[in-house]
């Protein structure tokens, strides 16, 4: 029964994804209401299946341990999906939010030429996130991780006719790829070196470091914070589901689920806390100076994700899970009503009975004047993380180009050598 419910929760979005993708591939005209019916029905089924699983867990039905952290069942389980005290609530949150966003988008994207494409990608994203949530093995989690990553990048580049969204999508894609190296390292190491689970502190440290590396990219933790506001290029509902609520939450969730693997290593725990704390401070400082609604919400989101990461590092798993779920719902709702900000401002002024003061938060006044200026610049420029990243890429590119030039020089040297000449002249081909 548990296996059936688990399979249903993941198979429903998979079937819809294939069906919608086939329709898009064959250029079939699919009516908006049919598309919405498929997506809403799919995630309705998934949510129901996970909810039943959760209920069975709560009443103590055998089939899934209610304790957090058993993510590495070793054996010959053909479908390593698990429902337990962590995966069931998280999967239910993911499913519900995707369902709500699909319902929201049925009117929001009405008449948009990309209606089918959006819902196709949304289904793919939901599938990926559900797989990560319910995965019972790291290898399966990687599959979900990649599906969610790819679809969310395509949602950032939804408006492909403009340059900005495509550049941002490419930027996020690059970060994801770099971060995925960590996940692949973890899978390979797990598979080849410690197939029976970490045996030593070294194993735990290597696995933990690799997983942290992966989580840093996905969760926009330092030093990758720059991409999160840039991801706000897609339609508002996709920004809400991916970057307000679910996508960034996958990072601390990965660390939470994999904690048995790295728990042995105190260094990893402290590294996670350090990254989380540094990101939380960075994000809250930067967020204060952001002047557009979506960037402000992106940094607000990041602040809390970083805090959850800290909690995971400290081993406060239940708190982290509650925090993660509460935050996903709150931020998703806030991003969906981001266009109300002007209206909210007027309501607020009416309640105040006078014009709103321009800036209310005065924490930065504690700093000395010169530092204030520096800190403001830091906040306004988001710590210049993007610029540094681009400079790094430039340097890498320059390195590659110099190798290419070297190669070209040797090629010319070899090709242009006159037949009568026994030895190449020094510097020929310059």
């Amino acid at each position, binding site marked *: 029964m548990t296996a059936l419910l688990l399979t249903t929760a993941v198979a429903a979005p998979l079937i819809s994804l294939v069906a919608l993708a086939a329709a898009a591939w064959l250029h079939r005209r699919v009516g908006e209401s049919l598309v919405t019916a498929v997506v809403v029905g799919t995630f309705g089924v998934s949510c129901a299946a996970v909810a039943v699983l959760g209920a069975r867990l709560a009443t103590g039905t055998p089939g899934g341990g209610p304790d957090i952290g058993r993510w590495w069942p070793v054996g010959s389980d053909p479908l390593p999906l698990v429902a337990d005290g962590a995966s069931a609530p998280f999967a239910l949150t993911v499913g519900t939010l995707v369902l709500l966003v699909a319902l929201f988008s049925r009117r929001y994207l009405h008449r948009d030429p990309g209606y089918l494409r959006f819902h196709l990608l949304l289904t793919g994203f939901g599938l990926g996130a559900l797989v990560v949530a319910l995965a019972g093995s790291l290898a399966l989690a990687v599959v979900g991780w990649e599906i969610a990553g790819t679809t969310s990048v395509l949602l950032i580049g939804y*408006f492909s006719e403009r340059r900005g969204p495509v550049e941002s999508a490419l930027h996020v894609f690059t970060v994801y790829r770099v971060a995925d190296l960590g996940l692949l390292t973890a899978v390979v190491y797990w598979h080849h070196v410690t197939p029976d689970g970490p045996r030593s502190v070294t194993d735990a440290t290597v696995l933990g470091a690799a997983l942290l590396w992966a989580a840093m990219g996905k969760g926009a933790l330092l030093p990758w914070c720059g991409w999160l506001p840039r991801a706000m290029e897609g339609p508002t509902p996709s920004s809400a589901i991916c970057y307000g609520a679910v996508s960034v939450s996958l990072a601390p969730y990965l660390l939470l689920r994999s904690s048995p693997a790295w728990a042995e290593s105190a260094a990893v725990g402290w590294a996670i806390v350090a990254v989380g704390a540094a990101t939380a401070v960075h994000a809250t400082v930067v967020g204060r100076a952001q002047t557009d609604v979506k960037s402000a919400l992106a940094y607000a989101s990041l602040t*809390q994700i970083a805090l959850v990461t800290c909690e995971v590092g400290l081993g406060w798993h239940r708190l982290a899970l509650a925090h993660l779920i509460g*935050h996903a719902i709150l931020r998703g709702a806030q991003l969906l009503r981001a266009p109300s900000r*002007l209206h909210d401002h007027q309501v607020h002024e009416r309640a105040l009975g006078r014009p709103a003061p*321009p800036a209310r938060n005065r924490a930065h006044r504690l700093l000395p004047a010169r530092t204030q200026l520096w800190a403001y610049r830091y906040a306004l420029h988001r710590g210049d993380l993007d610029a540094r990243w681009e400079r790094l890429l430039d340097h890498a590119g320059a390195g590659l180009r110099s190798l290419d030039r070297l190669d070209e020089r040797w090629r010319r040297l070899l090709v242009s050598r006159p037949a009568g000449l026994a030895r190449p002249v020094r510097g020929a081909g310059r």
Partner: protein
Amino acid sequence: MTPFDATSLDHQPGATTELIDHVARLLPQQAPLHAFVHHNTLHAFEHLPFTVAVETAGRQFGAEPYLPEAAYHRLRADGRITPADLAAVATGSGAPGADLRHGGADYVLRRLALDLDLPAGPALSWTLHETDALTRLHPQVDAVRRRHLLASGAERDLLTDLWARLRAVPVPTDPPTPRPARPRDRILEATGHDPDRLTHPLLIRFTAAYLDQGIAHWAMPGRDAGMLAAFHNLYGASRPVEPFLRDLPALVIDHTTAGRQAVDVVEWALDALGVLPGQRAAVIEATLLSLRGWAGMVHHLHRRPDRAPVSAPPARLTDYLAIQLTLDTLAARHITRQTLGPGATPADTDLLLAHHDRDDLGLRYEAFVLAQLMPVDVTALADPGVAARWLRTVAGCPELTRRRLLHLAYERRHAVTVLDALSAHQPDVGPPRAPAPAQVVFCIDEREESVRRHLEELSPAVETFGYAGFFGVPMTYQGLDDVRPRPLCPVVIQPRHIVREVADVQASDWWARRRAMGSWRFDVGSRTLARGAAASLVGGPLHLAPLLGRTLFPRAYHRWERRATGRQRPTTGRLALEFDHDEGWVGPQPGFTVAEMADIVAAFLRTTGLAGRLGPLVVVIGHGSASSNNPHEAAHDCGATGGGRGGPNARAFAAMANHPQVRRELAARGLPIPATTWFLGGYHNTCDDGLAYYDEELVPAASREAVARVRTDLAAACAHSAQERCRRFADTPDHPTPEAALRHVERHTVDLGQPRPEYGHATNAVAVVGRRWRTRGLFLDRRAFLISYDPTTDADGTVLTGLLMAVGPVCAGINLEYYFSHVDPTGYGCGTKLPHNISGLLGVMDGQASDLRTGLPWQMVEIHEPVRLLLVCEAEPRQLASILDAQPDLRRLVVNGWIRLVAWSPTDNRMCQWRDDGFVAYRPESTRLDRVTRSADAYVGRRDPINPVQVIAGVAR
């Protein structure tokens, strides 16, 4: 804008400020979004004829002047452009010519009727090299022509010959396009590196932070010193990471130690960029237009600081330009250094420019295809002279010309349809005989056309009138809830009077205020570190239920929420309307004197023709629109109140007309208001079609019954109007009942996920100034502004002059803004709403860092039909011509064709259209007019635009 010779200023020292002021006129004039007012997007080009203006502006802004050619061909297929229209515009476009090869009207006519999708650029090159386009007849060649062509030889030989001949002769050459003046464009052209990609992100971030009205918790330090000073303060001691900004701190120190003002910095940067003296105007223009939304907002807040949502920082366009040019200089130097090595100057990049020939293959290929498709003697093209002439003919009707002509044909068909219907309607109508039991006055807005029509159908005794929605009350208004007063009158009027609502019964709204403050604090706190954590843990799960409710059942949830939180406004107030001080009041006058109120009411009575015909009840209804999750909410409000909600104006007007002293004063002026007549103010929400009335407790007992009756009638009319509106929303069922339609539009209003709460002014196309009985009973599809005017009481035309001066620019502004946002949704409009992101409470960006997007979103204009306003005016042409002569602003709009003016004789059915420089008699094409019993018969089950038909139930008898 007066014609202005910018180049003459270039050589004068100290003319830079003047140059900047000149360019500023080209920037978008849009106010911050909460104060949205419709205006002509190309206001700065009104001194030019319409077609010249849109094409010039199109080149300058990189925007489209008309719809794409394919769109006109679709309209042609739908019968919205007929062959007769094409013939009419083709005849006007050139000399008649019998031989196609000589061009002329015959060629133009055939070319316009040809829906041909020709490849260009790389697609053309692919077609020529990779397909059999040069050896097989074009697929659109019909069978007859094919037989005719192939009679003389084999297909391949024929076409190969033809192509060779057309390749051999020289083509007419246009003067080469001059190189762009802006250094950025030259560098991009020469190196492929775009300096704007370096500078814009920083410029957007800085400008947004400088102008921010309260989204950031942390305001930029040192804003009060001015924009350039704030920039210098921020970056003077910085160590930028971006390579191109390496020299910025040194440069800032250089500027400040040299004591350079903003203008000096601009001049310094122009010199540093190597701009030649004669090109300064062009460079400044192109530079400011490259990020025109932000530049326009800086300029707007400088000119109108009162429109800032909170408070405008001291921004000046010169400061902004100084910053932009400083960054441009740095970027140009950086790219030059990178591509040409250290020591190179931006001007040196011209050396990299490859010289390439003008590509004329497109024209030759077009001539090649057209020679196959049109009845041209292909063999005669063997003569190089004939071939050259054929190429000249084809070159003479390029795409832009065809689109212009197709557009004129489209507008012609629209005018013919409307004018013929107006004319054919006249035999069936006549003036009302007795004063109506209820006279209802609406705004002239075309959205009220359907409400008026349904009201007249449902209660034939009622009479309706259209009067500009500020009802002649030019005031600044502050309601009980309002934090600051705002003007409620057309933007061209500077109100001298301020009217406040004062509490009548002070009820405690302590709880409502606490709630609002609480939710605000929660919102702000949830974005911080510690409070955000608490908010997520506790408040997060609590957000699920509202989110579910709002998404699944928006209307039910909204109603429940309103019930649960109690009434929105527990306090009732009255207007502090009357002012009885002596002379010598300084500053805005609080309220109106009796004489001023009498003037306002008298103007109304004279203009509408209600003088002497007043019935027992006059209802005055202002309008506005409320919608949720919509940054462009204010764009749906009333244009006549300057983008505000016209309820208070209706209320103030009714109070004035009920005022006993005002009535005495009016009686003394010969405009008595019967003692039995009562004026009632009301408010129509055009989004959910809800109605509200003001000061009902003041209604005398004798009028109560009449008020109750007219309220019922109006509610029914609004429900029917909602049904009519619903046909344009594609998400409604095909045949909703009026009640279901009302529920549907209510849901549109409160739904968070609804990007098109209403369609606003979309499809507006006509304005009729005249007596309502002449148009009553005509189904105008919510496309016509209806302005009541009685020509019989206005022999000298003073009333008409005032009316045209007020409504002409307002209606034209609305009409033209919709025109431009529709023909180029991304160039003139602000694109689709889906990625919009509110920045600084001022406007919206696309995504996270774009230009501030001005104009209307696509979801507002998608069903619009872009035609210029057809202003039909019940007056003799002679009188209209003399009004135009006396009013240069109005004349400019009419003579330059921004409005299509028609004079409609008040005594008979003659019509005269304004053509170029005078009125020309209009001869109807048809006298046929379809008839239906009720409006619903005309629109139920239809989603497309509907031509005027006669509604028998509504005709005045």
